[in-house]
């Protein structure tokens, strides 16, 4: 096991690199799995002519966790826990897409209060993911103070998550049928406090970076992809919107009540790194808009579906109703069963289209669950985006794609 199985000989890659590499005119460099700028364990084999990247061959799989196979061995609710750990910057988003797939498969209703709460949490998660993106992207381009500012904001959001569920990151708060438990007393106050202070912070980040000539020099005309190419390569999310295509699955295939809220979709024009940066910064503002609207019209009512075939009854019912005890027993020992058939649920994660293909077989365990993750699709375009740029620009491009290797490798 400890034999270096990551050694790939040049022979095996002959078909991918040019003849000049094999003769030694150009240099083959390994930008290894452990590297500060690769945002995780990504290995890149670069063919360099001096400092110019001629070919870039990504090698992924260093964070492969076997989540899809492991989920087949657990029942639907137990498998939910594993979804948190996939894209570890978008935990609630992963929970949400999996729960949407289950709810579609078993045809389970979600009460409006739960839908509104899911929207608030998903948008908070989007903001916190974009903050980490900004922190690491700016850090790679040597704007180190942004890192500290962004993580300070993120702590506020993580405090809100901890208030709801007890956990900062791996919350598993969104369950099939609604959410785990109702919002605590200080939630609204904390979120309003956040929405009051955050716009000033966005202005602070923009004042540091948006018109900074150093930042513009390092990001303008770097990693350009046009709208046609972006669609052909399966890009979605800010990568696609930076190239001018206004596709956002929250507007086109709305889920969890997104059609009730009023928000814009920012798009770029040139399709370069700078436009993607602008798109994501504007998305921060739009997310705040959605959160405020959802919080203003937060309906009362139940926070989870009352279909006892799928949702465990609350404890106070167990003392009074025999059916509740039977449902409780069945759900916590075997779990609920889903019918035979397959569904595909789509959500908009901070990185792009996050989809969950779920196939049931009539039993309590998912027969096949596959996550269509945006990072895998986006990483495919790295060779196209980085051809002809310098190695230093490659770092900026990786940052602007906003990959999370847990998402790509699952």
């Amino acid at each position, binding site marked *: 096991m400890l034999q270096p199985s990551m050694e790939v000989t040049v022979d095996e890659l002959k078909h991918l690199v040019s003849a000049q590499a094999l003769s030694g005119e150009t240099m083959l460099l390994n930008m290894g799995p452990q590297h500060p700028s690769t945002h995780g364990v990504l290995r890149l084999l670069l063919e360099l002519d001096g400092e110019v990247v001629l070919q870039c061959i990504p090698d992924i799989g260093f964070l492969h966790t076997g989540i899809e196979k492991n989920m087949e061995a657990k029942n639907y609710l137990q498998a939910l826990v594993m979804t948190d750990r996939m894209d570890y910057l978008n935990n609630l988003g992963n929970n949400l897409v999996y729960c949407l797939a289950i709810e579609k498969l078993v045809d389970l209703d979600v009460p409006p209060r739960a839908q509104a709460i899911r929207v608030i949490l998903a948008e908070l998660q989007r903001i916190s993911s974009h903050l980490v993106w900004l922190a690491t992207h700016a850090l790679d381009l040597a704007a180190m103070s942004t890192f500290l500012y962004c993580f300070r904001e993120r702590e506020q959001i993580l405090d809100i998550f901890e208030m709801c569920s007890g956990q900062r990151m791996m919350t598993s708060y969104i369950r099939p049928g609604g959410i785990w438990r109702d919002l605590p007393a200080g939630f609204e106050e904390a979120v309003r406090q956040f929405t009051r202070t955050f716009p000033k912070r966005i202005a602070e980040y923009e004042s540091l970076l948006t018109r900074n000539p150093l930042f513009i020099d390092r990001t303008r005309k770097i990693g350009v992809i046009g709208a046609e190419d972006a669609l052909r390569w399966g*890009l979605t999310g800010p990568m696609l919107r930076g190239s001018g295509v206004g596709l956002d699955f929250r507007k086109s295939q709305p889920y969890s009540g997104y059609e009730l809220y009023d928000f814009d979709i920012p798009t770029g024009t040139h399709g370069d790194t700078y436009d993607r940066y602008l798109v994501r910064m504007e998305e921060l503002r739009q997310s705040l808009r959605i959160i405020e609207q959802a919080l203003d019209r937060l309906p009362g009512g139940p926070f989870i579906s009352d279909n006892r075939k799928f949702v465990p009854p609350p404890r106070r019912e167990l003392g009074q109703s025999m059916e509740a005890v039977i449902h409780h027993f069945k759900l916590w020992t075997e779990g609920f069963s889903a019918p035979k058939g397959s569904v595909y649920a789509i959500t908009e994660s901070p990185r792009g289209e996050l989809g969950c293909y779920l196939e049931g077989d009539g039993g309590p365990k998912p027969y096949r669950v596959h996550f269509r993750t945006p990072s895998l699709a986006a990483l*495919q375009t790295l060779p196209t985006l980085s051809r002809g740029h310098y190695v230093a620009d490659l770092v900026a491009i990786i940052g602007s794609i906003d990959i999370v290797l847990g998402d790509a490798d699952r």
Partner: protein
Amino acid sequence: MTKVEGIAGALQAKLADGVRSVTTFRGQTTAQIELGLIVRACQVMREELGFELLAALTCVDYWPEEPRFSVVYQLYSVQHNELLGLRVAVDSRLGEVPSVVSVYPNANWHEREVFDMFGVRFSGHPDLRRLIMPHDWEGHPLRKDHPLGYEEVQFSFNFDEIDRRKPYAKG
């Protein structure tokens, strides 16, 4: 008939016998396509019916039933705002699917992942090798006859016994 069912009907018209069946489950439509005609189907979908985005490409293993694998394609149209699924049934003995890389370039890595996890080969793929597992791994993990690799959990009653067996590293 919904819009997407209409589109599936148009696909059926253009492909004649290529489309074996069209089903709708929970509001989502899936068309079962003949194995040899999948590239033509994708071409029709992309160029004539306006489905520009290959949203997902994955595979399901129905071991021990035959045909064993079923490769699933999810196509999305930005102009019509519709999602259509295509399925192709693959026999484990014959097992080669024509690659759709020429129509949708982003199928490249998705097909590599399917090959890696299930062992389904794609003919015409420019670079079919393992994507996620180590390149010298034997076996295809997501097949139903591949073991999970479950390790015995160390509780307090079997702690010492497992502790003796566990290959701890020396410095």
